[in-house]
């Protein structure tokens, strides 16, 4: 097996490559870069009549609300911890699914499994909120009505008990995304040179050994890239998951409140575009610093897999 160091060490034609990249680059400039003037909003006391450039500069005033609250630590902690769990468990579970799917090859049932695991991705968070509610509500919910009764247990008031929610939210997250994310690993495994497995077969390596010694190491570059990208968004949270799924239940805020839900609830009445922009900028900047740091680390340890 050759040492992989990117593609073709032969001289690349710069202008040809730039030309190939051009359509995508132009799109990103139009769709993402030019609209970035919108970040000015974060430093403006926005006035509709004066517009974005005419409004008064207000320094960091719009950022204040993110920090001057007793909950600042809580929402940061929740956001970070959930994301960490989602990155770790999500990756492990997706790889697990991908390996299982891969081992079955092209058999008919693979189609069925893949389709069923993908379906949850098509449901909106509002609907998923209803489903979870169907399971957990106090009066007619499946858990209290059927499961608890069958086990002879006292019914639990799920929407006022914080304990189980970190697990519930993680479960719901995996349910919605794992199937979809496993596709990435399925395609990566499919890209592995078959002769490596054949050689291992000849050497008498069993399935488990092949998975541990060949498949998983071969997935490392993908894992690294996906994790780096996830770290960039580690201050963001999936709003629907934390707002719709717990049905906005106040008693659960200690374990369900994240930066996004806090900002949403805080700005419901104020509708302040400057403060909303400030929150988004804060999340981006922190994510950016973290990812630049992590990327530098990766570059040191494993230079081939750094993002940039």
């Amino acid at each position: 097996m050759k040492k992989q160091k990117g593609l073709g060490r032969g001289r690349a034609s710069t202008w040809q490559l730039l030309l190939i990249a051009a359509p995508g680059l132009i799109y990103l400039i139009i769709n993402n870069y030019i609209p970035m003037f919108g970040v000015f909003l974060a430093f403006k006391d926005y006035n509709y009549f004066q517009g974005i450039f005419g409004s008064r500069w207000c320094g960091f005033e719009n950022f204040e609300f993110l920090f001057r609250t007793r909950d600042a630590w809580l929402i940061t902690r929740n956001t970070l911890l959930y994301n960490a769990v989602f990155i770790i468990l999500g990756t492990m579970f997706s790889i697990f699914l991908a390996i299982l799917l891969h081992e079955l090859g092209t058999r008919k049932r693979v189609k069925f499994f893949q389709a069923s695991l993908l379906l949850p991705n098509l449901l909106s968070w509002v609907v998923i909120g209803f489903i979870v509610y169907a399971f957990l509500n106090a009066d007619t919910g499946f858990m209290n009505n059927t499961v608890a009764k069958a086990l002879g247990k006292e019914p639990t008031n799920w929407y006022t008990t914080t304990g189980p929610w970190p697990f519930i939210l993680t479960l719901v997250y995996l349910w919605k995304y794992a199937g979809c994310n496993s596709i990435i690993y399925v395609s990566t495994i499919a890209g592995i040179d078959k002769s490596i497995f054949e050689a291992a077969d000849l050497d008498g390596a069993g399935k488990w050994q092949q998975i541990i010694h060949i498949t998983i190491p071969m997935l490392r570059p993908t894992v690294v890239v996906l994790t780096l990208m996830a770290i960039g968004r580690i201050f963001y949270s999936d709003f629907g998951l934390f707002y719709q799924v717990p049905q906005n239940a106040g008693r659960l805020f200690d374990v369900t409140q994240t930066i996004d839900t806090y900002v949403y609830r805080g700005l419901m009445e104020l509708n302040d575009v400057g403060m909303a922009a400030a929150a988004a900028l804060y999340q981006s900047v922190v994510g950016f610093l973290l990812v630049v740091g992590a990327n530098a680390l990766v570059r040191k340890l494993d230079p081939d897999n750094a993002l940039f």
Partner: protein
Amino acid sequence: MDQNYTESKHFRLFCTIVLTVLAVIALLPILLIVIASVTDEKALLANGYTFFPAALSTDSYYYMVRQGGTILRSYGITILTTVVGTLGGVLFTTMLAYPMARSSFKYRNVLAFFVFFTMLFNGGVVASYIMWSRIISIRNTLWALIVPNYLVTAFNVFLVRNYYATGIPEALIESAQIDGGNEFIIFLRIMLPLSIPVIATVALFSGLAYWNDWVNGLYYITDPTLFGIQNLLIRIMNNIQFLKSGSNAALLGTQAVELPGTSVRMAMAVIGMLPVVLVFPFVQKYFIKGVVLGAVKG
């Protein structure tokens, strides 16, 4: 060899069992929605969601059909935008990813950073709105459902770059260069065919994004003849959510607004999924073929 054979047979059995369990877990809640959508509204409220409803009713679907023949048309629009958007997206994404994967390309890191930056920072909806609706007037055209936001995303570009950089032997490119192929030829003749597994993946992600999208429709489409299916559903769904908040209900002082009930909402969820369920097996045929095909060549 023999031992290996029985081992892999056992292993496959193990895979099948685990996957069956997981598939059931994935499907049960969805089945619950389907059943709730055909449960009689009264029974649904009295007994809650159940797999064995006391009374069935197709009222909720009747209600949705009554909303007009618009459902079929919006299916058409969603399918069209999904197909066009996915094709265009895959093409631009792979084109952008290729130079980033060439280690001898001077600007590969600059390019990578340039792309990655868009994943973190954005100017907010207002700035994009100004861009797309005022500077490039695509309001009330099908382009508005295809172009903004989803065409090329940093995430997909990195997926493809990563695949190119690790999954394709560089010897292939070197030999092509010796044969006198320029970058365009290498990209078209070698990279594209070899990257079918990742193209299938990116196409799937992009397709899902287009299918599930209602944001573009909300911002850039005011003519209901151009509404996609999700736009149709989100309007009803979110009007309900809007009224569920006490302050909004008090504000309007009209408790008398007739709202569709739970089973209708479930029917909406089913209507949103249905075509995908119907079409997916065909897409999947190509998908699995693509993944395997790529593997054979690689």
